């Protein structure tokens, strides 16, 4: 279960409680994805979905530097962001299964999951489609003098969308409190990103006069430390910023992408999982620092796994929205658009 955050100022996490929450949040994401993958494989989930497994340190490292007031925009690979920003398993699984108790009453599904109450403005099925939204949220914050920061998550492939350059320009000109976080997992669907990205992604942001950083996306502490610093600076009007996070997705592009040999090797996958797993490595660190014992970590894992399983069970049994909802929520203020 996500614990609600009470920190009012942003700072790097440095105490045991914080560390353990970060660990737990990463485990929660992994557990959520494992269940989602199972749902797909057992044909219980409608449509397709994109697994976040492997990238957990990015979402958690960044979102732990944010408050509920801070906004994020997410992507097609959005479950990790959603969990990290504070969402609950039940409402998430309900949404993935198109049930009425889902965050979006089943209308959004995996690719549009949003969690307004924790500042998650939603996943987006248009690659790069939320870059304007995050920037606009930051403009609103600046115009209204509120101190929240907006983080725009997107993939390496999304840097090919012209929209990014347009909004970076405005963010830089207007000094908006927005952080562009590029999760570079090396692939855009079935293509290596170095085959479709010329020059340097980091330099592209810098060319707009935006302070830009690279960080190991598998190291939750490094991500969190940098993010906390930048969030704090953005609050003070020193933004925008750009972060490129090197990471890796463990599964295929989507759950149905099983045979990946033609675009990436099994060895490469195995290497990342073995040597660079963000959860394993952080767990080891927690142990070595004496913050948690191996048993305690196993207990967390088990507890989270049980939570996830219970939530799946709940969601599977939950009702679909009634047919009459089909023309609801088309226009605010009009109950049924087609009445």
């Amino acid at each position: 279960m996500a614990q609600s955050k009470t920190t009012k100022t942003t700072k790097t996490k440095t105490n045991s409680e914080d560390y353990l929450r970060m660990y737990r949040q990463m485990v929660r994401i992994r557990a959520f994805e494992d269940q989602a993958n199972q749902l797909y494989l057992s044909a219980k989930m409608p449509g397709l979905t994109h697994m976040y497994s492997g990238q957990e340190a990015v979402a958690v490292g960044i979102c732990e530097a944010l408050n509920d007031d801070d906004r994020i925009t997410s992507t097609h690979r959005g479950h990790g962001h959603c969990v990290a920003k504070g969402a609950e398993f039940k409402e998430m699984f309900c949404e993935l299964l198109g049930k009425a108790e889902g965050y979006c009453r089943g209308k959004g599904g995996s690719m549009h999951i949003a969690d307004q109450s924790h500042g998650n403005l939603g996943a987006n099925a248009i690659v790069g489609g939320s870059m304007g939204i995050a920037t606009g949220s930051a403009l609103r914050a600046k115009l209204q003098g509120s101190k929240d920061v907006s983080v725009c998550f997107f993939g390496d492939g999304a840097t090919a969308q012209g929209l990014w350059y347009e909004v970076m320009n405005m963010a830089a000109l207007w000094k908006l409190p927005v952080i562009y976080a590029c999760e570079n997992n090396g692939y855009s669907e079935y293509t290596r990103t170095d085959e479709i990205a010329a020059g340097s992604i980091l330099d592209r942001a810098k060319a707009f006069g935006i302070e830009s950083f690279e960080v190991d996306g598998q190291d939750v502490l490094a991500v969190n430390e940098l993010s906390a610093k930048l969030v704090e600076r953005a609050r003070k009007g020193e933004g925008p910023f750009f972060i490129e996070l090197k990471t890796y997705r463990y599964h295929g592009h989507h759950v149905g992408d099983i045979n990946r040999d033609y675009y990436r090797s099994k060895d490469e996958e195995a290497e990342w999982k073995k040597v660079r797993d963000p959860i394993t490595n952080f767990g080891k660190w927690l142990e070595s620092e004496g913050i948690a014992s191996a048993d305690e970590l196993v207990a967390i894992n088990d507890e989270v796994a049980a939570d996830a399983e219970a939530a799946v069970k709940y969601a599977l049994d939950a009702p679909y929205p009634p047919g009459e909802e089909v023309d609801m929520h088309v226009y605010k203020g009009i109950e049924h658009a087609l009445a």
Partner: protein
Amino acid sequence: MREITLSKAVNEALAEEMRRDETVFILGEDVAEAGTPFKVLSGLVEEFGTDRVLDTPISEPGFVGIGVGAALTGARPVVDLMFGDFLFLVMDQLCNQAAKAYYMSGGKLNVPMVLRTNLGATRRSAAQHSQSLHALVAHIPGLKVAMPSSAYEAKGLMKTAIRDDNPVVIFEDKLMYQDKAPVPEEEYLIPFGEANVKREGSDITLIGTSSMVQVAEKAAEILAGEGISAEVIDPRTIVPLDEKTLIESVKKTSRAIVIDEGHQSYGITGEIASRLNEKAFYHLDAPVLRMGAMDVPVPFSPALEDLTVPTPERVVEAARKLVSGELIHAA
């Protein structure tokens, strides 16, 4: 009543709403000091400052996206799109994002954004600065679409649009900015989805949108001289569409022409005509006729451009045929 230009009416609507609601702001190219190329916004930056009247770079997709994000999180942006033709550049942000956020979030997020833009040919601006593209956005659920036909509607509909909790696209006719009409000093709003019967008549219904309301009115005038009594209706918003008023009129007159400045095929006229055909079928003495802009890109040459848009003369001619029953043999 005082008469003011359409340009002034829009300006007043924006100023009043900006005074009333601090979260309203304007975003677009050359909207501040320049007050837009059409000078519609002149004076607003002086009153509200550059924090509420923001000049953007030439980045239409970008600043519409920014508008969506601001609207999603508690502001009420009025995004200025200099020419309606640039809608093609912003369709993703408008139609994939703004239009769907409320639905996709199951009612948790909404986008109270106004996109102000324009339509209209015969300004010798050629194919990329003369289009009337309201049909494209009218086809997308989640967007509302307003089409003011005079200064009066321009003001009242703009104020309603700004207060609406949904994304609204409002099309002004570029050629009407200097046209004057009576506009009350007192505040008023024009509700969406209420057509305006501009002139009553009994022989035929002329339904026009935006500038085509004037065309319909002129046609009605000429027809009156020939003893044909035309009712003229301005739907004012095409989404939502006040089907009821239109249908009632057609049931009364039993004939109708739908006039619009968008391309005729797959556009506004087909939708309205088929709703009338469907719902007033047994009252019709003749098929509902349509008059849209010609299905060609807008040509630059004045000799050609003027042929592409509906005119009062062409409406009169069609109306005469309908009323005289000439079309019976044609069909």
